[in-house]
């Protein structure tokens, strides 16, 4: 074998170190031997063989690394564990968002429950409906103050502490129908574009039947809900990242055993 061929073989031997370790340990020797055989094969033209060798080296290098990654990370137990952990973290993140969101939203009704109950009681005990909601000038689009609106039995406004763009809005008739049957309803009401209100509607009986609506802007509550959502999202992504890093590390640590078992 010529000095030139020996140099090529040494270079090839170095290049073989770039293959995955398990593949290298199994086949580096036979691959060098195949090169040696090719270099002594007089039927093979050198330039054509070197071109083939170069192309083969790069394509098989990529292929073997992908095969190694597939063997390392596509093991059912590893994938199953990662998916289970991802599922648990997703449920936890949803709970992390849903529970505070519900607490915030239901808490937003608290003063209105009191206001609506009191106003309904006043009307039922003889107060004229138009006087049950003391005059106020709450701008529903801007103010965070709670307000009361009294409606007659047909759902027409009778008195109001709040206005939206100069008029007194009314919730959909379906809400009144529900309250007529069930006595009370608590809803998120959107009286106008960009205006959302936590509303409690109570049925009023007695001599002046109708409805009392106590409301308060949801603006601040929804800001807090958005903060909770963002925090839950960050926590979720963080946990998923940890699961990914942990699974990759675990797969890597246990890879030799898996490869040896497969061979």
């Amino acid at each position, binding site marked *: 074998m010529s000095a030139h061929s020996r140099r090529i073989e040494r270079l090839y031997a170095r290049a073989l170190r770039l293959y995955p370790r398990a*593949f290298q340990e*199994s086949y580096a020797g*036979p691959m060098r031997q195949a090169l040696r055989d090719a270099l002594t094969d007089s039927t093979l033209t050198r330039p054509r063989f070197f071109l083939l060798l170069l192309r083969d080296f790069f394509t098989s*290098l990529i*292929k073997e690394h992908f*095969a190694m990654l597939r063997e390392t990370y596509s093991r059912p137990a590893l994938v199953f564990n990662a998916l289970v952990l991802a599922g648990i973290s997703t449920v936890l993140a949803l709970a992390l968002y849903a529970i505070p969101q519900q607490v915030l939203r239901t808490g937003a009704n608290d003063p209105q429950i009191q206001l609506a109950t009191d106003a309904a009681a006043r009307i039922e005990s003889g107060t004229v409906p138009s006087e049950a909601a003391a005059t106020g000038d709450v701008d529903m689009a801007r103010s965070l103050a709670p307000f009361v609106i009294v409606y007659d039995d047909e759902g027409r406004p009778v008195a109001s502490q709040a206005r939206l763009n100069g008029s007194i809005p009314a919730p959909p008739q379906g809400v009144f129908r529900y309250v007529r049957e069930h006595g009370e309803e608590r809803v998120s009401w959107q009286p106008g574009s960009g205006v959302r209100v936590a509303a409690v509607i109570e049925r009023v009986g007695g001599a002046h039947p109708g409805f009392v609506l106590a409301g308060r802007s949801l603006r601040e509550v929804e800001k807090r809900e958005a903060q909770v959502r963002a925090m839950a999202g960050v926590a979720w992504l963080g946990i998923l990242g940890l699961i990914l890093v942990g699974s990759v590390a675990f797969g890597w640590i246990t890879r030799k055993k898996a490869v040896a078992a497969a061979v």
Partner: protein
Amino acid sequence: MGIGNKTQGPLTPAVFAVLLALAENDKHGYAIMKEARTPQGGGIEMGPGTLYGTLDRLMRDGLVEESGVSDDERRRYYRLKARGRKVVAAELERLQTAVKQGRALGLLPDGARR
């Protein structure tokens, strides 16, 4: 999915050439490469990386095994197992059917007259 499960499907050119080369007798790596290069061996030019990667997968799938015979520490011989023989036979049958169709369509000359 392993190569052995693909008995009904087409094999890759490298897998086909290696199995065909070993169907004749046990061979070492370079002999397989050389046989694969010939027209009757599939006409596949493959280097050592492709060859040993293919052999590795074929051994895992139980189609090929090391014969245990070696005339040199580095020169290992490989042997076709019964399962590998079945797979290459199925592939040849598939190709034969395609060749028959090619003849029927006039794409190939009639083999019987040649």
